[in-house]
């Protein structure tokens, strides 16, 4: 069947050739063209992107399209706000379609805190382009020069005239089929002049969320839909030797497949699907895998080639070996962080269906275009014959980049001729996803007698290079990341390696301050090269009423301790203050956290605050007690009763300070606010007890080791 030509995805067409008006009716479209990846996978002068487009229709409403997705981080409202701002429309008159591969601009995926620096900027430009065209049309209609008019609440009005002549957008775009491409001459509204963006706003999804009306992927159904289950290997790395599907096929209504790597069943109801799965007879070959106790040695002994964000990284200035050799003070330590799980509250879910020869997959993924291409590859289809739609998704945290369940559902749907939905059980979500990579970081620091840093050798194993660089002034540096094989599946995670790398660096900085008895805030401030970061640290210590410490590190153990940490990553600057109490039984209580954050011009302050608060809580879980336990490729705690995540009783008082910089480009806020928590708490524990903890989680049983 060839329905493809009539469904050609917009991203595979030139910006001026897309059938915008067939889709949305006549009107005006502002388009930012995309920038495809270069040969190195990166764009020219920045990340590759597919741009953005905004349609203003005869109903006077704006419909915007972007390839990013909102899996719960609140970017939908933020992105609607910038469009509303450019077009001077109420937020309620803006609709945003995200992550639908048929009509949205291409996107590499929603990761790396790129929604504000990239998607928001493209939507601002697309909105500004449409706005400029509206001004030109309006000025002509009103018989004045284009510089005499402005946009005001859905109309073009004569500038400065309170009740002068005006013309609503709907009148200007009637019968129009006009596509305007963004040009450098059209400049979006400066953040310092924002009237809607930059101000607290209720989420556009609020009502559907509190009423239960919001339909996540796992809530969707289509007529005749079957429920799918995948046969998973019993341990990581196990290979299927033999499989017999006959037993599964005795269950009424069951379709069972073994295609490529996929063994799966689909049945009219979930219980039948589970029954059918249990009747599959499979033989596996399970290569031995290292257990948890030997994992550090395993990582040290298994270097691997780098790829993607696992890139091998080498940064070097000066001569670190001789600087370390000559340093009057030298400290050496190894820091580790455990494998941890994303635990999105909505487990992975997908709904696949075919119409003619065309496949539609609704899936909670952070990478819809990558999913489309993977589906096309796996099923030998043209990308034009695959549509991926990302419905509301119950969080991702970097965990929802996988495409295997989408491929399984698509194959089951094809084999059965029915729509197929797969929703992972919680245990499947734990075991058959992937984890935040374990980190092993070997750190050597050298300093003068007064503590001035002279040498910094920072060697990361496995975790990745995020935040491995240091924001502190030090002449001789050697920083590298060595990818390794992993005994568990591992990939992206909220803040990824930045959490471990920042933990190691900020702990070591604290050790150096303690070694020379200097106040740890003053010690940081005298080494920080970045004024913005120093400003955030000052704001946090002021709020926390930090008392500068004499003879830091020399006092006897006390019930309470305080610590600070900073971090600079993905354009955001964070400082965290922690206060802890450690009682005589070594029980740890986090009594207070203050997080300061600066990420340029704030687009959606109430959501940014929410992200920083929530990120601080999530980071507390990884800092204190979260860890995946494993043995020989099997996960030992794949349940919420066994893998502890933060709950209400874990919530300390959290204060958030946001520093708005309308003069600077907007950066993301979903990741970097997390990275100060673990080291600030570890430093506070040191302050209270004199014990320096170098492994995350710090207190898995609630006790300071």
């Amino acid at each position, binding site marked *: 069947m060839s329905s493809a030509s009539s469904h050609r995805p917009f991203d595979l067409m030139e910006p001026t050739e897309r059938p915008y008006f067939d889709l949305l009716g006549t009107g005006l479209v502002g388009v930012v063209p995309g920038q495809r990846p270069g040969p190195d996978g990166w764009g020219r002068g920045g990340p590759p992107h597919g741009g953005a487009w905004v349609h203003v229709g005869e109903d006077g409403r704006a419909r915007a399209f972007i390839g990013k997705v909102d899996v719960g981080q609140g970017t939908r409202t933020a992105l609607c706000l910038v469009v509303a701002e450019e077009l001077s429309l109420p937020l309620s008159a803006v609709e945003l379609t995200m992550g639908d591969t048929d009509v949205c601009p291409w996107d590499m995926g929603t990761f790396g805190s790129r929604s504000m620096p990239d998607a928001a900027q493209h939507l601002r430009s697309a909105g500004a382009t449409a706005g400029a065209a509206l001004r030109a049309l309006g000025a002509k209609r009103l018989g004045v020069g284009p510089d005499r008019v402005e946009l005001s609440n859905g109309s073009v009005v004569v500038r400065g005239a309170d009740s002068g002549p005006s013309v609503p957008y709907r009148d200007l775009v009637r019968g129009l089929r006009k596509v305007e491409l963004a040009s450098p001459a059209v400049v979006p509204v400066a953040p310092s002049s924002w009237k809607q963006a930059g101000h607290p706003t209720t989420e556009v999804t609020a009502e559907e969320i509190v009423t239960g009306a919001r339909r996540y992927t796992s809530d969707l159904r289509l007529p005749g839909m079957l429920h799918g289950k995948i046969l998973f290997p019993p341990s990581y790395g196990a290979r299927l030797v033999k499989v017999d599907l006959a037993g599964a096929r005795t269950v009424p209504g069951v379709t069972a497949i073994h295609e490529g790597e996929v063994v799966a069943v689909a049945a009219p*109801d979930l219980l039948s699907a589970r029954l059918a799965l249990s009747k599959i007879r499979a033989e596996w070959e399970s290569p031995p895998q290292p257990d948890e106790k030997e994992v550090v040695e395993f990582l040290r002994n298994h270097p691997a080639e780098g790829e993607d964000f696992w890139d091998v990284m080498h940064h070097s200035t000066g001569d670190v070996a001789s600087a370390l050799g000559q340093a009057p003070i030298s400290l050496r330590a190894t820091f580790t962080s455990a494998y941890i799980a994303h635990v999105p509250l909505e487990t992975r879910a997908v709904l696949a269906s075919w119409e003619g020869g065309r496949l539609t997959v609704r899936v909670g993924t952070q990478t819809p275009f990558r999913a489309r291409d993977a589906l096309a590859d796996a099923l030998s289809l043209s990308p034009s014959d695959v549509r991926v739609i990302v419905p509301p998704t119950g969080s991702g945290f970097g965990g929802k980049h996988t495409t295997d369940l989408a491929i399984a559902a698509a194959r089951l749907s094809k084999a059965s001729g029915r729509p197929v939905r797969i929703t992972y059980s919680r245990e499947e979500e734990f075991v058959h996803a992937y984890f935040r990579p374990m980190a092993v970081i070997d750190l050597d620091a050298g300093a003068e007698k007064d503590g001035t840093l002279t040498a910094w050798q920072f060697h990361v194993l496995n975790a990745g290079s995020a935040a491995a660089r240091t924001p502190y002034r030090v002449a001789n540096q050697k920083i590298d990341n060595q990818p390794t094989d992993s005994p568990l599946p591992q990939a992206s995670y909220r803040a990824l390696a930045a959490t471990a790398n920042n933990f190691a660096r900020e702990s070591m900085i604290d050790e150096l301050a303690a070694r020379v008895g200097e106040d740890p805030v003053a010690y940081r401030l005298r080494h920080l090269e970045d004024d913005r970061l120093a400003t955030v640290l000052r704001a946090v210590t002021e709020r926390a009423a930090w008392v500068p410490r004499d003879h830091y590190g020399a006092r006897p153990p006390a019930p309470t301790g305080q610590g600070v940490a900073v971090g600079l990553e993905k354009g955001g600057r964070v400082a965290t203050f922690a206060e802890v109490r450690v009682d005589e039984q070594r029980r740890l209580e986090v009594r207070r956290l203050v997080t300061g954050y600066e990420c340029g011009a704030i687009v959606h302050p109430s959501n940014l605050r929410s992200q920083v608060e929530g990120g601080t809580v999530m980071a507390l879980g990884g800092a204190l007690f979260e860890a995946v336990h494993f043995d020989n490729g099997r996960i030992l705690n794949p349940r919420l009763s066994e893998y502890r995540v933060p709950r209400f009783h874990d919530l300390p008082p959290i204060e958030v300070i946001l520093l708005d910089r309308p003069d600077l480009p907007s950066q993301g806020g979903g990741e970097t606010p997390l990275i100060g928590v673990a080291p600030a708490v570890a430093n506070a524990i040191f302050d209270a007890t004199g014990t320096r903890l170098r492994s995350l989680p710090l207190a898995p049983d609630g006790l300071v080791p």
Partner: protein
Amino acid sequence: MATSPVGGRPGATATLRVNGVDRVVPLLPDRSLLYVLREELELTGTKYGCGEGECGACKVLLNGVAVRACKTPVGEAVGPPIETIEGLASSAERLHPVQKAFIEAGAFQCGFCTPGMIIAAVSLLKRLPEPTDEEIRAAMDGNICRCGGYARILEAIRNAATTAHVPSRSV
């Protein structure tokens, strides 16, 4: 509806009173109330989060008290009124005070835990119209928000308690 080969007497039905309406469902007593609500009645506001009673995403009111639908066999839900998140607001314009308070406090991110949180909060406020923060934390500790929105949820419940003591609609 497809005949299930899994348990139950073929053809047996039961009547559940859900959000004030009688609903006839197949009676397979081992099936969870969560399964019946979501898969038979398509009331998908009640969520599956863990299936072992640990996360609270599946909470519904049974006789006005929050229960975990994933751990409640449907046989135990025959008789008493069941209220799900869909039944809390009498109309889009008339949200329950707890729903309003969640919106005003911005007490959600991805929103997946929110129905269970709201049900748990409604149940709490029926029992304790003016709870202390400690009582709120204790009552809500069985509900997980992986986005970490606890502070705002606490604030929303606190505000709902002080602004209105409106019980949920009787069913």
